[in-house]
């Protein structure tokens, strides 16, 4: 990954900042300058919005042959997450076993390491998703694994 390209997208990558078309109300991530539905009508009406980071798994796959930087995490889960605001993003699901993952599972965004340029290079951080541990008491809550 090129450092300038990574750096330009830090704001949206760290905080899931997308855009909302004020004409039709559709939310996009990553951010867009023009709404693909409203075209020219949306010019100047695309508003930056911070997404909640909550959503559900739309589809997923378990990866056994890792790409570079993921050797220590195999097997791992890559999923398409449908955010509550509507956009779908592709991301890794962490902090749970592949066997626990299912379509429709509630997840929430966290910031994790997504790669690095070797031991002496830049560390890249980005969003991944963890299961939303449902609990009356908290956002993360308690999972009884004994």
């Amino acid at each position, binding site marked *: 990954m090129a450092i300038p390209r990574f750096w330009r997208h830090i704001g949206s990558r760290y905080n899931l900042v997308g855009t909302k078309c004020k004409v039709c109300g559709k939310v996009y991530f990553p951010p867009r300058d023009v709404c693909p539905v409203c075209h020219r009508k949306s010019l100047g009406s695309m508003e930056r919005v911070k997404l909640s980071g909550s959503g559900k798994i739309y589809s997923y796959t378990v990866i056994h042959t890792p790409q570079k930087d993921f050797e*220590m995490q195999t097997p791992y889960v890559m999923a398409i997450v449908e955010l509550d605001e509507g956009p779908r993003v592709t991301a890794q699901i962490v902090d749970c076993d592949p066997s626990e993952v299912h379509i429709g599972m509630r997840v929430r965004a966290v910031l994790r390491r997504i790669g690095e340029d070797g031991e002496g290079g830049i560390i890249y951080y980005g969003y991944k998703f963890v299961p939303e541990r449902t609990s009356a008491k908290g956002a993360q809550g308690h999972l009884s694994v004994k």
Partner: protein
Amino acid sequence: MSAGIVSYGAYIPRYRIDVGEIARVWGADGEARSKSLAVYSKSVPGPDEDTATIAIEAARNALRRVNIDPKDIGAVFVGSESHPYVVKPTASIVAEAIGATPYLTAADYEFACKAGTTAIQTCMAMVKSGMIKYGLAIGADTSQGAPGDPLEYTASAGGAAYIIGKEGVIARINHTVSYTTDTPDFWRREGQKYPSHGGRFTGEPAYFKHIINCTKHLMESVGTKPSDYNYAVFHQPNGKFPMRVAKILGFTKEQITTGLLTPYIGNTYSGAVPLGLAAVLDVAKPGDRIIAVSFGSGAGSDAFDITVEDEIENYPRHMGPSVMELVENYKMVDYAIYAKFRRKIHLGV
């Protein structure tokens, strides 16, 4: 007007390893190890977690509980002995990830296990002087012991974040004092992967001397005695030291139990006292008085005298995970997985 805690948030990685499992690999007696340290298991960060991601999660948990515009946070300080970079601050990553950039100051602190409490002191001073509206102080670590070293049984990961301000204070910090000397009990030189320590030297002249003197100095300054406090939190490199220092100072087991987490999650270094204090704030009631004393090798202690305010009744603690929820949300791993996660195994490519 005095400064205090406006919000707080904790984070502990989900993985744990049993002290007995570490002992098994090194041919040691696990039960004896566990008993002598009073530690059963320690937290292990996932392969994609580091001090920055832990600090961010703790900070976001603090912000979930309070309605503050992140742009009103004028300072972010992250205390750790395991910053991901030697040069390149963790604090700027955290500031970006909570949306506080760009009009703020930020820096990393390093003072072994007390860097997080020193960050709280700096935020207090900046808030009190009117330089900033809110300051964010974080203590977080992903500490490593060399394989087979006694430190490996306890060195763990976790952190807590504190938003310091004057408005909406849930716990007032009445007073803080420190005690610092040049004591070479524990160190890590540039380029070294694992720290070195002075063995038994780390006890009496380091941990005990600094915590005892600092605690006494605080109580003399504010005119309190141990029985005035509902809760006491002492730095906890293992389960034994805080019990012993409490006894020496005249505190009871009941006063320290709530804030004593090391037996379950190990020594979270810069995260230790911030997490212990968070566990106390999770259950504290208005009027409760808390004393919290950190210790960092090298060596120094920071002590805080805290009174819980009525405001805590309106504070939505449930919007973030409690420390006990984080402690209880765990998955045990064996030494092989632990070694892989902690990069003690190197790929042959």
